């Protein structure tokens, strides 16, 4: 059996079914199309096809979710009324030789609908975070501006999509929390309160250590998206930058210049890189929070980091960010943050020592109420180095998740499954919490014991 081909993104587009209703005006429906080099006829054909598919609404009032073809999968998501996200993905195939003939076999079950729809939802929520809702944008600046924004945003965003590695964690879209002892936690709280008091323009804050959240003042929905953004885009980019800077020969000379860091380790990730250098104002992002409520708030996102602790500040949108502000912020944040970071590091080190003795079971845990996620399945949470169990088992977990939420529609239940490779996968769901374990032994008894141990 030869290698399977990869899951590739073939098309991604956004359209509005109510625009351009007349013949010859179909082009107006298309708001964004990837790959951008497709010619216009092809685009129109695709849209026409989708329109027809949507006819299926004659039978059901629910939105169309997906179309399964032999070689491709189309997924739909109606982000806002009449605005549709459509993605088409190629189905991995492998070639088999049977009786002297080569057969191409399509592994359509490798692509799970629930998983890839989540990809679309995330694409939408990320856009919404940085640009506001579609309707909001339309009201403020009109349709051409909307198209332009799509162009800008998605051309970059689509490059970050890692379809091969999508798995159950994406479905949960949860947050890794860092449990801390009371003292440290209270100190952090105190610190945040002080900052907020000193700078009344700051509306919300979030505190992270490495890539785990310690505290967040944001709504859950927003925090989810911000967290994902930080994890997948901002932090890796920053780390890479740091790495490059460190390895460059100019580094040693830069270190010796005292001007940048007077006595503390903190600096802005989103903000001016050097508070004393007025010429480069740095970058901040505008974010739109609480979009699902009546009061959408526009804020500047400022991210500041010292050692491994990061603090995200959401500053009022109307406030003009100037260097005075930056400098004050820097001087307040820097030393304290650095101190806190090293304290946490100490505690953290102590804690991991005690944890090592626990048996390392491979599990994933998710709590719907506070979006807490824990996993030992993945070596590192950005998944760049892959999971430690086979993709097949990961997909089984997705299946279990789907089953637990679809059969009987009652919340609680559990499923034990033994796969062909003799691994047991157990899924338990109770009380808004889900838990999946992978075990490579043959005894059913052992599973029961595990279940008891790990149920929190």
């Amino acid at each position: 059996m030869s290698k399977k081909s990869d899951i590739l993104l073939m098309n991604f587009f956004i359209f509005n079914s109510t625009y351009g209703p007349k013949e010859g005006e179909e082009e107006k429906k298309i708001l964004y199309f990837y790959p951008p080099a497709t010619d216009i006829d092809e685009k129109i054909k695709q849209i026409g096809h989708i329109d027809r598919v949507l006819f299926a609404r004659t039978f059901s009032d629910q939105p169309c979710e997906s179309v399964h073809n032999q070689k491709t999968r189309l997924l739909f998501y109606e982000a806002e009324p009449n605005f549709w996200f459509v993605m088409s993905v190629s189905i991995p195939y492998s070639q088999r030789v049977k009786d002297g003939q080569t057969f191409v076999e399509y592994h359509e079950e490798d692509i799970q609908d629930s998983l890839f729809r989540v990809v679309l939802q995330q694409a939408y929520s990320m856009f919404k975070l940085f640009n506001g809702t579609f309707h909001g944008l339309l009201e403020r600046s009109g349709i051409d501006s909307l198209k332009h924004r799509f162009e800008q945003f998605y051309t970059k965003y689509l490059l970050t999509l890692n379809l091969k590695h999508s798995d159950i964690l994406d479905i949960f879209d949860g947050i890794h929390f860092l449990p801390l002892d009371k003292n440290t936690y209270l100190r952090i709280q105190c610190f945040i309160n002080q900052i907020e008091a000193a700078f009344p323009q700051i509306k919300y804050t979030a505190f992270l250590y490495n890539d785990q959240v310690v505290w967040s003042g944001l709504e859950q929905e927003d925090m989810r998206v911000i967290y994902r953004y930080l994890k997948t885009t901002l932090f890796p980019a920053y780390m890479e930058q740091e790495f490059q800077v460190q390895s460059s020969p100019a580094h040693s000379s830069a270190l010796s210049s005292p001007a940048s860091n007077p006595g503390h380790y903190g600096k802005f990730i989103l903000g001016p890189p050097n508070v004393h250098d007025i010429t480069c104002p740095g970058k901040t992002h505008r974010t739109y929070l609480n979009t699902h409520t009546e009061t959408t708030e526009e804020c500047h996102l400022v991210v500041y980091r010292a050692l491994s602790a990061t603090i995200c500040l959401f500053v009022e949108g109307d406030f003009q960010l100037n260097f005075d502000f930056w400098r004050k912020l820097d001087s307040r944040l820097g030393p304290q943050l650095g101190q806190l970071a090293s304290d946490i590091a100490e505690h953290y080190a102590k804690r991991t020592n005690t944890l090592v003795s626990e048996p390392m079971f491979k599990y994933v845990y998710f709590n719907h109420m506070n979006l807490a996620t824990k996993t030992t399945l993945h070596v590192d949470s950005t998944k760049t180095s892959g999971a430690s169990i086979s993709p097949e088992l990961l997909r089984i977990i997705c299946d279990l998740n789907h089953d637990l939420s679809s059969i009987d529609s009652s919340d609680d239940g559990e499923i034990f499954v033994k796969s062909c490779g003799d691994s047991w996968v157990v899924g338990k769901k109770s009380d808004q919490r889900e838990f999946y374990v992978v075990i490579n032994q043959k005894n059913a008894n052992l599973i029961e014991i595990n279940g008891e141990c790990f149920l929190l």
Partner: protein
Amino acid sequence: MATANKVADATTEEEDTRAGGEGNETVPVVLQGEEPGACRTSSMLVASDSFVDLELCVEEANGRGNVSDASSEAEVFRDRVPSGPIEEITRLDGLTVSNDVQPSTECSNGTTPSAEVTTEDSGSEQPVTEKVTLVRTPSLEEEEPDYTHSAEWRAHRKHVFILSSAGKPIYSRYGDEDRIVTMVGLMQALVSVIQSRQDSLRCIVVGQHKFVFLVREHLILVGVVSSHESCQQMLLQLNYVYSQLLSVLTYSQLVRIFKHRRNYDLRRMLTGAEKFFSNLLDLMDYDPSFLLGAVRCLPLDTAVRDVVAQSIAQHAKVKDLVFAILIAEGQLITLVRMKKYFLHPHDLHLIFNLVGASESFKSAESWTPICLPRFDSSGYLHAHISYLDEHCRTCLLLLSVDRDVFFTLSDCKHKIEQRLRKYNCLKAISKAIDTEMTYCVSDTDITELRHFLYKSKSTAQFTCPEYEAPYSGASERAHIFGLYQFMHQRLHSAARPLKILYYVGAKEALLGWTTSGFELYAVFGPLVTKNTAINSVNKLLKWIKKEEDRLFILNSPTF
């Protein structure tokens, strides 16, 4: 065409046996071929797994479908000369059967429909041709609105449509197919757009509904389902509907018709056959045999069954008789076959459907052509169908490749009937139908077990008890059938087949277990512990082994 199960290939036998093993429990070592219900000699049915079969069908069809126009002439020409087993048998015996002349071709008088049934009153010598036609009311219907506006029509759980690849509606499960013309046109457009991109449309998911498409020679079958079937399972059902269509027309004829006229209205050839489709679809809603690709046998003492088989084997030893089948109420009593030829469970299901859907067979002996798609899709077998008892429950089918042996077979039937009466077999069969046909779970003396399905893979037979409380009502049965579908889908999924599935929900606990020898699906109460479940299952296997002579047909008698 015995297909080995993919799962079986991957596992070693030891793994299967310890599958449900608790720390201290002893699980019976079940090797392939030794499971309860495994046959002693070779099986009379082709062992198959429904999904593996389906994939092979699809591959075959795609292989045929991908033939370019230039060579399609050759393809069709090849089918004109029937090449399957029927041809073999007839050639062997020096009989020339021309498959071109069917009772159902477009005759010059233009009124002979395909489902023509020749019946004979037991007294007279003249076969009377009974034309079964549907009276079509003239087209006032075109003025009535499309069904798509009727909420009631839409609310059916499973719609099935057959349309030609040109977009003409041929069959609709609910309602009149004339009224769905626009929708059908849309479906055809969808399929052809995707085909133009070298791809093929499989299914569309809309919330709870799935639109499943199966494209075959010149036909498109569409299922719209809002129940628990998965796409695969729905495709399976559509494939059955297609086979039923082939069973009436044969594959060669279908291809030939559309070759001559692309716009041919196939309904003309199918008048009278709608009841077969409807019955089949109704059966598939609650009968697990389609899902499992297996056949259910009437629980009968081995002694009685042996006598029956012998009587048939002796008295029906006629030239060109391929199969002699005795069935009762959708269950198999015995099957006697020509050496070398096996019957596929798929075909047997179609035969059950044929008998179950027609009332006309009960009145007199009948002679009808039937095509068995898995046996040979290019030609007809001719079936002599009659009931052996007064209450019309035990049905004897004699299938021959020769068109003209009605009277010979009628003779055979009389002889067989005499002999069975002499040995009181018919009484025994009647008794079995009344009492033992549906045994209860309580017979097995296993508490906590509510219901189960057990399939023995090597014989392609399965057994299951009667539904009793809490599953005696129709909606509860639909519920439990949905659970079986769920288990089956998970255990047989192409990419991630599982060996064991144990699900604990609010209303029941389910256990699904496949090994290389058998498949078992069991339903327990929700509070059962895993220990109890595994124990029960072991006990069940022992009980089935004990009763296997009664529940399964273990021998395979031949002529």
